[in-house]
């Protein structure tokens, strides 16, 4: 239940702080959200498999987010802004795989 509580706390924080996002960074933030989602599911799965290590989890989260943002940036610089799709696809695939494994544990 704690992750859910964390999620709610984050949502409330976002609503209270009202930080405006410049349009140019919307895609960066979107990819960061995807990375966070991926990391959360990965963490959940690892904890179900009892292989969870918080150091690995945190570094994984940050490196994934930064790498994703970097890919978006490189894509923009090279004129192939579709490069961010690489990150989206990678995260998406892992998300569904983790979800499947979690499903098997829970039900």
């Amino acid at each position, binding site marked *: 239940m704690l992750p859910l509580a*964390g999620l709610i706390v984050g949502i409330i924080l976002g*609503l209270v702080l009202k930080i*405006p996002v410049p349009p140019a960074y919307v895609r960066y*933030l979107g990819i960061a959200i995807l990375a966070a989602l991926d990391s959360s599911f990965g963490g959940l799965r690892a*904890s*179900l498999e009892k292989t969870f290590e918080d150091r690995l*989890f945190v570094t994984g989260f940050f490196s994934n987010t930064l790498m994703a943002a970097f890919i978006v940036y490189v894509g923009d610089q090279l004129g192939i802004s579709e490069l961010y799709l690489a990150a989206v696809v990678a995260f998406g695939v892992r998300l569904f795989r983790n979800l499947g494994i979690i499903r098997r544990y829970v039900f």
Partner: protein
Amino acid sequence: MKNLLHFHAKRAQITIALICALMGFFLVTQLRGQISYSHRLSEQSDQDLGQLIRDLNLETETLRSEVTDGRIRLYKYEGEMASRKTILNEAAQNLENLKILAGLAPVDGEGIQILVSDQKHILNGSDLQAIIEELKAGGAEVIALNGKRIIVRAAIERRRGNVFLNETRVRPPYKIEAIGNSKILYQAVTLPGGIRDSLISLTGVSFRIKRKDTLRIPAIRNKPTYNYATQLTNR
């Protein structure tokens, strides 16, 4: 979800919760950014929206007139550039013509070549001048004597038995080249009773004329200097 709690350490839960909080924060911030515009519009009253449309229309009008102004300016500049280009082209053409006239540029073209032999050294500068005048009358554009360009200031005269072109001695046989319509030039010098007939009647003088498809005449070697004449500025 409930049985999840049974078998993992609290630490994992806390860490995941933190990341989830971060994710929630991101999510809300992102969604706010995405929907803020449409949200703002739907909240406004019809009057406000009308005002907004009027404002935007006004802005569109201003921008449109700005575009028109810019376009007009662009056309003006383009026209100016085109006229400037024609003026420049004309000036370049004029300069080229003047350079040929002054003998500053080497030239080639069709024309005739006249070889005048003078075994007894009896020809005067005026005889050569007469040939040159005849060629000019025939429309010669550029003339050279023994490979030296004849320009406006060229003087041909006889001093102490020798023929000089300005300060340079020219020796027979004299080779006179002229660029122009070779047919007309040929006729000009071979006119019955003309220059050729009067010169070949002299002893030791022969006349050989060749029509050429391409003749090359070099530029003058030294640029003329003007010590006395100064140009009047045209006001």
